[in-house]
């Protein structure tokens, strides 16, 4: 038992070291820095389009480019939408209707989805005969698939209720790297703008930054008091934004290795389900369990707008790559495009 006790003491000592090292670089807070900056003016976005067609709760939406997006619903369908016209470009029936996530490949050639089937299914949108078919079923997770994101047409990262994330080779269907370390279900992931790292948020209340190529967890961020459901990179890749069941969002800076800001309000008591930064990062749009989406000034941590219009939980949100609009998806079965 001697070694166990020694290791426990060493772990505690290292945790204290990390806390001290973070404090040592806190020469000023972000709040001090932005004290002289004005809060942005009220942001009033209008619903420009409503995408109708799903028959059940929408769980995920992801933009492919600034016009096409893919949505996943527990009606057992993936729908690829032309958001300018509201036309359905593809309506893909799924083998398992218990879908929790979907993703569009950056190339526009493929989409992926997964959920309670514990698998990530890859669909080729550009097949020769025009039909959309399953190209690969990536199976190895022992828990539900909560999120997936393509790196390119041959690599995809998944997060799972089995507490791991995995980098897959799509061609061979094999796991290239398993990212283990979280102590609770992994709920969400985000890939860095430079594609070298990714972040994961989990039910152990922490977010982790991972090196994609060597599989190493580089940093772990705590502070949330409940499950992290949503995570995303600040546009310059130097900070991470998380959304949690504790009703708050937080911004963690990667290079100073600490939390800089919390976005919360005593009037908000329900969980954050989803989030997306605007193009400049100045606005953070976050979806909540109370059917609304709040817009935060990311530097001043004040609410500057609300998107209301859904009749049920906002489960997913995404901003187009060109920053021109955001899309919200809801358990009310509709997607709305706002700007």
């Amino acid at each position, binding site marked *: 038992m001697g*070694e*166990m006790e020694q*290791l*426990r003491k060493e*772990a505690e000592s*290292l*945790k204290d*070291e*990390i806390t001290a*090292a*973070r404090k*040592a*670089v*806190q*020469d*000023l*807070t*972000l709040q*001090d*820095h*932005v004290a002289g900056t004005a809060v*942005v003016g009220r*942001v009033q*976005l209008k619903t*420009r*389009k409503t995408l109708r067609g799903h028959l059940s709760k929408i769980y995920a939406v992801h933009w492919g480019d600034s*016009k096409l997006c893919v949505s996943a619903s527990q009606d057992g369908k993936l729908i690829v939408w032309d*958001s*300018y016209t509201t036309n359905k470009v593809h309506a893909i029936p799924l083998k398992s209707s218990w879908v929790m996530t979907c993703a569009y490949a950056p190339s526009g050639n493929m989409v992926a989805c997964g959920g309670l089937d514990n698998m990530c299914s890859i669909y080729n949108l550009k097949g020769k005969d025009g039909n959309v078919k399953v190209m690969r079923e990536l199976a190895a997770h022992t828990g539900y698939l909560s999120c997936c994101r393509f790196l390119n047409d041959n690599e995809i990262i998944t997060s799972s209720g089995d507490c791991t994330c995995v980098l897959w080779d799509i061609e061979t269907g094999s796991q290239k790297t398993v990212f283990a*370390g979280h102590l609770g279900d992994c709920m969400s992931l985000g890939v860095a703008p430079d594609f070298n790292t990714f972040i994961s948020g989990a039910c152990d209340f922490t977010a982790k930054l991972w090196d994609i190529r060597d599989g*190493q*967890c*580089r*940093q*772990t961020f705590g502070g949330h008091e409940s499950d992290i459901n949503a995570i995303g990179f*600040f*546009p*310059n890749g*130097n900070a991470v934004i998380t959304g949690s069941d504790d009703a708050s969002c937080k911004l963690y*800076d990667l*290079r*100073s*290795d600490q939390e*800089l800001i919390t976005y919360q309000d005593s009037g908000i008591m329900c969980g954050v389900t989803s989030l997306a930064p*605007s*193009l*400049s*990062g*100045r*606005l953070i*749009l976050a979806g909540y369990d109370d059917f609304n989406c709040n817009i935060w000034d990311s*530097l001043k941590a004040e609410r500057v707008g609300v998107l209301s219009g859904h009749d049920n939980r906002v489960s997913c949100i995404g*901003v187009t790559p*060109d*920053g*021109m*609009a*955001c899309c919200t998806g809801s358990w009310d079965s509709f997607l709305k*495009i706002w*700007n």
Partner: protein
Amino acid sequence: MSSKMQSSNNIAQARRTVQQLRVEANIERIKVSKASADLMNYCSEHAKYDPLLMGIPASENPFKDRKPCTIL
């Protein structure tokens, strides 16, 4: 699982935890003042290109329905 296997698993896990904490403790950290300044600068440099922040003229909004024109 025998209790010997279990305790050696626990030790292996504890060793991994310590190893991971060592990696995380040893990273370089920049000052919060620099991190904050860089975040602020990024926001202000890119604000003018942020449509949701600046607003979008109707004529440039691909999501706004074009109203039909009537020739009088």
